[in-house]
């Protein structure tokens, strides 16, 4: 366990280095001068001297490696630079929007699990037609209907025709409801299918038969063996969606004008706000990598024989 942890962390750090340096180099070699973009935001025509001054201020005249080391040392002091758009510290902006994203993502995820775990497990072990139909229905809706369209339709019904909920913005608990519900449908669909398929394969395995033969109660067999055994693949996908949510609930945040990371990044991309993009890459990669390390350790604990890295 300890050695695994050390190895995983080492790999994760290397990966983080690779990602940040890669994106750093890419930004500098690509067409489109960030200095010019910065000056263009002010809508002023800049003289060559001005451009040169800004370039020096931002350190763009130095060689790439020196720039990267400089950036890295500032990251070490928790300084991610200032946003081109607002001039505010990137870390502060990202921190604020992570909180907003967490509100939507967290409540959406909880709703999704509340929907998916009962439906998934129930439809795996019951032969009743109604159960299956409901599970299939929910997962079909979640898979085929884009979450932003669900969001639009829900807004039309519950915020405009029936003025119960706010249309957009971040204003109290009520404003979380619509984005969270739209999100949960999409997420639930994945988990229902996944839980059902994995539970069914697990239940069909030989050791379950043996446990039955030994006279263990159905309940013990189900929860202690089958459910636990079917968790690792579910967990792998769960980690993936956690990571995806950590990167922002992009479309829904834009739709509901909810100031989360996803919305912030879309704005940053459209405005070419490089410090913000760089900071986002660093933080999101760090979160995703950390989540994966945790997932592997938990998986190892649940099923020591299961060593797969992802879905295999």
């Amino acid at each position, binding site marked *: 366990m300890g050695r695994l942890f050390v190895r995983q962390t080492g790999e994760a750090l290397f*990966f983080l280095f690779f990602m940040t340096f890669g994106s750093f180099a*890419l930004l500098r070699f690509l067409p489109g001068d960030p200095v010019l973009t910065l000056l263009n935001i002010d809508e002023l025509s800049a003289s060559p001297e001005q451009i040169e001054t800004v370039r020096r201020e931002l350190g763009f005249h130095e060689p790439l490696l020196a720039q990267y080391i400089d950036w890295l040392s500032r990251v070490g002091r928790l300084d991610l630079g200032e946003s081109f758009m607002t001039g505010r510290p990137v870390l502060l902006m990202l921190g604020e929007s992570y909180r907003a994203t967490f509100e939507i993502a967290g409540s959406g995820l909880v709703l999704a699990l509340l929907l998916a775990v009962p439906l998934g497990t129930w439809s795996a072990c019951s032969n009743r037609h109604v159960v299956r139909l409901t599970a299939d229905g929910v997962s*079909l809706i979640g898979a085929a209907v884009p979450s932003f369209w669900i969001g*639009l339709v829900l807004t039309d019904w519950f915020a405009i025709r029936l003025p119960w909920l706010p249309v957009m913005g971040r204003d109290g608990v009520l404003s979380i409801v619509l984005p969270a519900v739209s999100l949960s449908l999409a997420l639930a669909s994945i988990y229902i299918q996944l839980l059902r398929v994995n539970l069914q394969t697990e239940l069909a395995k030989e050791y379950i038969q043996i446990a039955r033969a030994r006279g263990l109660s159905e309940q013990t067999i189900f929860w202690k063996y089958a459910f636990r055994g079917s968790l690792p693949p579910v967990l792998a996908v769960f980690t993936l969606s956690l990571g995806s949510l950590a990167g922002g609930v992009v479309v829904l945040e834009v739709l509901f004008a909810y100031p989360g990371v996803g919305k912030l*990044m*879309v704005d940053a991309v459209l405005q070419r706000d490089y410090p913000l993009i760089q900071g986002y890459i660093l933080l999101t990669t760090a979160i995703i990598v950390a989540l994966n390390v945790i997932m592997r350790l938990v998986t190892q604990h649940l099923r020591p024989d299961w060593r797969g890295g*992802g879905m295999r």
Partner: protein
Amino acid sequence: MWIGILLIYLGTHSPYTTDVTQRLASSSMQHWLGTDALGRDFLARLILAGVISFLFSGVTVLLTATVGTVLGLFAGYYGGLLKRIIHRIEESLIIFPDTVLALVLAGLLGAGINSLVLAILLIKWVSYARLTETIVSSTKQSEYIWMARVNGLSDAMIVRRHLLWTVLRQVRVLMSVDIGKIILFLSAFSYIGLGVQPPVPEWGAMLNEARPYFQAAPRFMIWPGLCIVLTVSASMWWNRRLQQQTAKKGV
């Protein structure tokens, strides 16, 4: 036949011509589904959006499947160091969610279709490579491949004659569902303005453009959404049929 009628309609109605006198017109003989806020024919835009979505999705899926299958063939057939390297790359890529990667690439390369294609390619080839590798490394051991080798067939011949078709049958199943998923992905990114750029129509982008007019004309909300849902469901249905067919035949 329906597709034919729709294409003829597209031929007779330009999706780009703006007509200020006909803004937000409702359905008529001339404009079957009315016009949008700039007086452009709504049905023509819907149809063109569909064509664009299919082209985009089709090209991306083909590209992804080719890359994945080729790498998977190599990894499965030769094994060894090459396989380990490919696995390494797969493992580091698979932890990235597609939306995050697309967002990052859009940030680095600028918004637009190129970043989306690259993001999809980087994420999705892994599943094709893994599928191919599994099939190849299991059939590689089977007797008839062994016989082929004894009879002096070259590696390239063995792969082309015997392995490729088995693989492609399975790859086809994966492709069928991915087409729908990619259309969904494209529409989401176009909705937020990081996909297809105006004035080119796309269902997600159309939903975003028409948002201020939903109350006055719900058709702007209903039709593009319905198009997405129907297309994605069709792709899922097709996938299920292919799955059943393949299962019947056996691998």
